Each structure stands twice: as structure tokens, then as C-alpha cells.
């Protein structure tokens, strides 16, 4: 999977035609072929852009930044990224007409060791659900993609393993995680769907009875955060990549996603245009047996 040339061409063309002000893509760092996001402002910088199976980050996160907010933006998205973009569009955070979306028919990205990432092995919607042009192994396909048909759902083995543990062991496992958290909030900043003006966990009412940097504040913050992403999280795992303590944050999101998928008509976040997430609708057939 290497679309470097195509993306450079597209970016150059877009700048030349005056369609965009800024292009968000990936560049190499020079170390181990690692890549980081890059914002380029003109055709002259287009040769900095790359795209390989090491282009792991979800660039949609950069749409909430000051550099892009009031501008026309070109953007590279993979399947999962496009789902989060779909949600941002539905929630009115970005305007479609200001975007030129370069979709990638994603075959999965890899970590430093060259192994396919876990979320890519579990991916149900590899093709972008929203794009102006889609880059596929067969060539460039223009136009908005057809509605995505999700592949069979895969349960997350880590979540399943934990669920199989006795409650006390699970308690211990997570206590350690919440103890390790340093409340740096990098997870939140890296999340494309966290765009609130002031996050609820920083507001006075929420912090009042916690103190700042304690296990219990970490528990409160992460649980609340994951519930705000429940039914919206697209499993791009930007948060996990951003976490300086390397905490397995995907566990919280995957647990919620699985409960939602199983109970609420196989709901998957951001796949359908206009869908706001599982908590913003309901069905009369929702499970009721857990309620006395």
C-alpha cells in the first residue's frame, strides 16, 4: 500500500486549481520510516507528503485545529478515519464544502515492527465512507463512495479475555491502569471526536470532589470520556498512540462498542451518514431484562 505519488499529484493539482488552502497528510520523520502528520500550505511542499502502510494516525483530528478551521482543506482518510469524519459532518463541526477528501481503500497499517495493528485486523469498514476520490490498488476512483457494507464484526480478544477473568482480577488490572494514568489528557487531545470548547471533566462541577491527579480522578475522567465516545468511537486508536504511559485505552472503547453492537441493532459508529451514535436514538426492542 503506497499512494505517495498519487497523493502528491492530487495535492499539487488542488493547490494549482486554487481549491484548497491547506493539505493535511503524512510525512516521514527520518527515523525508522516512522510517519507524523503534516500540514502543507502550498504546492511547493507537496513532495513532503507520503502515504504507506505506516501512515497510522487519524488526520481528521487536525480539522479541529486553528490552522484548518476556517480554511479549505485537503485531507487523507482511511476507512476508520472517514467514519470519524462522517460524525464530525453530522455533528456540524466541519463543512463538507470546505473539504477535499482523499480516501484510501485501506488494507491495514502496521506498527514499528511491521506487524498489522490490532484494530486493522478487526476492521469492519476498511473503505472510506466519505471521500471525493478514492485511491485503490486498481487505480483512482472518483466520486462519493457507495454506502459501506460492514464486514463481519470481530470481537476484541483483549476485552473477551478480561471478561472471562474473575471480577477481582479484573478490578486489580484496571486499578493499575487508572493508577498509571498521569491525567495529561493526551488521549482527549488526540481524539478527532473530542472537540468540546471545555471538556466536562475539566469543568468545576466534575472536578469539585476529586482533587487533581489521583487514581479516582483518572477513573472518573476516563470512564466519563469513554461514555461520551460510546457509540461514536470509530476505533482509530489515536488515543492509545498518544498515551505517554501506553495505557490500553482501547479496552474501554471496545467494551462499549461490543455492548452497543450486540444490543442495539448491530450499531457501528459513523458508518451511515446522518447517524449520530447509539445514544442519540433508541428502539422499542432495546433490551429490558436488566431492569427490574
Amino acid at each position, binding site marked *: 500500500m503506497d499512494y505517495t505519488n498519487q497523493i502528491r499529484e492530487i495535492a499539487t493539482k488542488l493547490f494549482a486549481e486554487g481549491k484548497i488552502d491547506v493539505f493535511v497528510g503524512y510525512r516521514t520523520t527520518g527515523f525508522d520510516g516512522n510517519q507524523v502528520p503534516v500540514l502543507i500550505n502550498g504546492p511547493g511542499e507537496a513532495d513532503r507528503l507520503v502515504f504507506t502502510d505506516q501512515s497510522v494516525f487519524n488526520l481528521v483530528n487536525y480539522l479541529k485545529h486553528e490552522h484548518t478551521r476556517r480554511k479549505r482543506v485537503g485531507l487523507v482518510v482511511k476507512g476508520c478515519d472517514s467514519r470519524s469524519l462522517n460524525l464530525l459532518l453530522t455533528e456540524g*463541526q466541519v463543512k463538507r464544502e470546505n473539504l477535499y477528501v482523499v480516501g484510501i481503500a485501506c488494507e491495514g497499517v502496521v506498527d514499528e515492527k511491521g506487524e498489522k495493528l490490532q484494530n486493522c485486523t478487526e476492521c469492519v469498514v476498511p473503505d472510506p465512507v466519505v471521500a471525493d476520490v478514492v485511491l485503490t490498488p486498481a487505480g483512482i476512483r472518483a466520486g462519493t463512495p457507495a454506502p459501506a457494507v460492514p464486514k463481519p464484526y470481530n470481537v476484541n480478544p483483549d476485552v473477551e479475555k478480561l471478561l472471562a477473568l474473575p471480577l477481582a482480577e479484573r478490578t486489580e488490572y484496571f486499578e493499575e491502569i487508572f493508577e498509571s494514568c498521569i491525567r495529561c489528557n493526551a488521549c482527549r487531545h488526540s481524539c478527532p471526536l473530542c472537540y468540546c470548547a471545555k471538556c466536562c471533566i475539566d469543568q468545576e462541577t466534575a472536578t469539585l470532589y476529586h482533587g487533581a491527579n489521583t487514581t479516582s480522578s483518572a477513573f472518573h475522567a476516563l470512564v466519563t470520556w469513554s461514555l461520551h465516545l460510546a457509540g461514536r468511537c470509530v476505533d482509530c486508536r489515536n488515543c492509545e498512540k498518544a498515551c505517554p504511559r501506553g495505557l490500553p485505552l482501547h479496552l474501554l472503547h471496545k467494551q462499549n462498542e461490543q455492548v452497543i453492537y450486540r444490543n442495539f441493532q448491530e450499531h457501528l459508529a459513523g458508518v451511515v451518514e446522518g447517524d449520530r451514535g447509539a445514544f442519540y436514538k433508541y428502539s422499542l426492542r432495546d433490551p429490558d431484562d436488566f431492569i427490574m
Partner: protein
Amino acid sequence: MARVGVFVCFCGANIADYVDVPQVVEEVKKIREVKYAVEYKYMCSDPGQQMIRDAIVNNRLTSVVVAACSPRMHEKTFRKALSDAGMNPYLLEVANIREHSSWVHQKDKKAATEKAMDLCRMAVAKSIANEQLFEISVPVTKRALVIGGGIAGIQAALDIADARIPVVLVEKSPSIGGKMAQLDETFPTLDCSQCILTPKMVDVASHPFIELIPYSEVLELQGFVGNYKAKIRKKASYVNFKTCTGCGACWQKCPVKVPNEYNMGLDKRRAIYTPFPQAVPNKPVIDAEHCTMLQKGKCGICAKVCQPGAIDYTMQDEVIEREIGAVVVATGYDLWDPKPYEEYGVGRFKDIITSLEFERMVSANGPTNGVPVRPSDGKVPKNVVFIKCIGSRDEAKGIEYCSKICCMYTTKHTILLHHKVHDSHSYVFYMDIRAAGKGYEEFVHKAQVDTHATYLRGRVSKIYKKGDKLMVRGEDAQIGQVVEVEADLVVLATAVTSPHDNPELARLLGISYDKHGFLSEAHPKLRPVETAKAGIFLAGCTQAPKDIPETVAQASACAAKVCGLFAGDTLKKDPMISTVNTEFCSGCQNCVNVCPYGAIVTDEVPFGHGSKEMRTVAKINEGVCQGCGSCVAICRSMAINLAGFTDPQIINEIVSI
């Protein structure tokens, strides 16, 4: 710093017997913010309220906690006391130490006292976060919608319209009049139903403040008290009412015969028809289901004979909208189908009929011109058995409630039978005679004397055929013996049930109904005409079985309620509704999506102070918001809060236990 006053009520012995009230007061005094705490025998009494008023002034209190009964009981009383003392009434909190402590922990005074202390602490903590709130005024559309054109709907519409308030009267069938139009004479005065009803029907049609929409149904009701918007479907009548003169040529010539609903199927009407001669409006409609022109495209006779050319086979259903401020629901009742009484041979024996069928027969404009006959052979019956409580008071086969009117109309039927067939004899099987009402007992007594009807107290167990007679076997419980009556005709007083489409109607209006399908009043005793939804009222049998005088009384009560609602130019509204902090709102519009009332809209505000760039935020429509808090809980950035139940208030309660 907050200055809270706490007032703990003994409620006579109700609280004091199970909670150590003085100890609660002592404990509450330890809270830093509590500047005044006192106990009293009856806080809700005048001296009790005076204590609160005095304490507010003397101690410069900033909020008040009353520990007493449930806030659902006396919250309003104490709020009033606060405002009388010049304090904002919403600075009150009630700690429910009666229903939630003294009454439910009567065996453990220590635990009940501790719990009462906690409940007081929670209320104090919450009250510290209380804010001043002010009643909201919303504009009101002064037009009422009346659903159902029976006597209840007619009465309500006329009374409201007489107060010069416009009324929209929606009736499902082609004519107003309802069940009362099918009756012959009415108890207990035996005045002719048509004679007293038809003038009212004509009044409805000619009243300048009533818009009569017959042959139509309410499809949708949106909005809130004072500001509803109703969608009404006018069914295609295939007759242009504007040009139709009501001459009747069409239905005289129509070749299709259909069982006549007005006469309980005892005779036939045509496919184009007016339901009965005195119908209002007196314009025919085409029954599309049976019209051969509309079904098969063959016929067209009515169009040919219609001089003004009023017939229009291409007519379609039409949906119209009306803005209204209040609704009166008067959809009447259905009659219970007696099929489960198989031991009576219901369905097998033609000479077993229901009371309404009997009513049509003895009616002067009925299918038999007022003479009761046996459906099997057309002979005039001599011995008629009336059986009461068919379906009523019968949990096994029917429903457990009493239908209330059957005792009286059966008595009336014995009289009518006696009038029409002089040598006839009535037998009445009854469980009890329930004749509670003005002149009712006298009516029953007089009927028994005049008609010499045989009253048999007991249930009928079996009806079988012997020759062309029906043998009715039952128990006469007063002599303790089984009796058999040889009957020519058996009349079943079938139960009154709710209209079968009430649940559907209730759902679209957003009101509730009971397990029998009757619409629920807000309070069985004190608010019998209101529903739980503000601005929607109930009249007549749609709420519960009742007779004509009661129905009319309830309809007039509805009218009074509607007029009262429309008395001012605005409605006062509880201020406990959602508010948006636009600073934190990110404009995701999820709240717009979940609000069940459509009370949230979007607004544009500048990005920053003086900025020309705009961003989208949520905005609450104060008049529409009902204060459920759905939007608050789904708002991720905590930009919405619900006045009276804010996050700080609830968190204060949680942490202060």
C-alpha cells in the same frame, strides 16, 4: 456564604412518632451553612408558614429547607410562603421525611432518624446550589379542538364557542350526533332523544365560532399547551359539500345496499348515504368500500342524477392543519361484543339481540317503525327477557367494571316495550339495580309498578331453543330456585367499552389510558376532566362509562377549563426548564435530535467577543420545553442545565449523604 433555614415538621404524630425530630434539628444545626433550624407540629398550617416567613426576614436566609411530607404534596404551599416573605419561591427545597422515612421505617426509630438527617443534609446541600427562577409567560392560541361529535363533543363545542372562542370540531363519521342520535327516548324523563339533540346539532352547524369538520380524523398533534398544531385528515367524501343541496336524489337512486350502521345492521342503506335523516351536515358521502363506481369503475348513477353536479369520484383525502391552544377529547364508547356468551347461543339464535338493536327497533325512525319484532320471523314479541351485566362485572368473560348505564336503560326498555306492545311482558334478570341519580330510583320503581315487569335477581345460565321460543334458564337467587322463562325475544344489556382506537389516539395526543382503554384523567377525584398533559381535557364516556347528564356536565366542565386557560393573553409556565450556556456549547445538535418536544433550535453567536465570524449553538424555546432533562444528560460539554435540577444541585445531594 449561604444562609439556610431548616424547618422540620412533626406532621402531628405522622413523623414525630417514628423520627426523633428534635435530634434531627440538633444535627442539622451543625451544618455550617444552616443559620436557623426549628421544629413545629404542622409546618403547613398557618402558624407554621408564619414561622417560615418570619425566619426568612429575621435571619436573612438565602434558601429554605422544609423537612416534611413529599414535595408532591406541599411544595407549592411552601413556595407560596417564601414568596409572601419576599423570597424567590424556587429557593425552597423539601426533604421528604414522611413518605420516605417515618412512614416506611416505622419499626426502627434510630434508622429512620438517621435517614431523616441525611435527607435534610441532602436538601440543605441542594438548596445552596438553588438559583432564583422566574415564571415564564408563553403566548396562547385561542382556538380549541374538540375530537368527537357526540353529545359530549357537541356540548363542549357549543359552550366554548358561546364564550366567543373559535372551536374546531372533528367528527369521524359523516354526521355529528354520536350514539345519542341512535337512542329513542332517554331516562329518567323519557324525553325523545332526537328532540333534545337535533337542535344542538343544528346550533353546531350554524354557530359562527364553530368550524365543523365531519368525516375526518386527527392525525397528529404537536406542540404544547396554548400552542398546539393539529393535522387533520379529511376523508374523501366524493361529494362536494359546497355545491350539494342535500336533495337526496343520489341515495334514492343508488343501487348498492349495505347494512345500515345507524340501525345496527337491521336494515340497509345505500353506498351513497346520509347516516340518518336529521344528519348534520345533511350532505351524503360515498362509502368507497362498497361503491361499485369507485371499486370497479361501473355505475355512476349518482353523478348522473345529481343536478348540481356535486359528485366527484376523483376526490382524494386531504390533510389540513389548524393551530389550537387546547383539546377536548370526546370520542365516546363502543359496545361489548357478547360472543363469549356461548351458553346463551349468541350468534346462533337470531332472536337474541343487543340493547342498542332493541333501541333502534323501538325508535320511531327505526327499521321497524317503532315496533319491536323478532328478527327470525318478524313477529311482534310478547315475552321479552332482558339480561343485564352482559360483559360488565364479569371477569371471566368480559370486564370487571360496572357499565353504569345498563340498569337505567333496561328499565327504560321495559317501559318502551310496554308502550309499544301493550300485552307484552318483560322479565329482567339482574345482579343489582344501580339507580343512583336524580330521579333514577323513582323511575325504576315507577317502571316496575307500571309495566308489571318481573324482576329476577340472578344470572342466566343457559338459553336454548324450544320450538320457536327461546328458553331462558337462570337462577332466582331470592327464592333460591332455578327458573325458566319462555321468551320470544332476549335483549342483552352489553357492556360499555372504550373506543377500540383509543390507545392509538392516546399515543398521538401523548396522553395515557387505563388497562381497559379508557383515557386517564389527571386525578380521579380532584382533576377528573384534565389529562396529565396540560391543555388536553376529557369529556364523556371516553374517560369512563357515564350517562347523558354526567357526560354533558363533564363536557361543560371541559369548556370551563378551556375558557379558563384562554382567559389571559399568555400562559404562566413553570421555570424549571433547560438553559444553554452558549460559551460551552459546541453546536453538535444532539440535543436538538433527542428533544421529544422539538423545543431546541439552533442559533448563531459570534465566535468571540466582537468577532464577525459566527458559530452554531443550541437555543431552548422556553414555551415548548417541558423540563425533562433529556438534553442535559446527553450534552457532553455540559453546556445545558436544567433549572431546579442542575448538575451542581444533584452532585451536592450525592456527596452530602
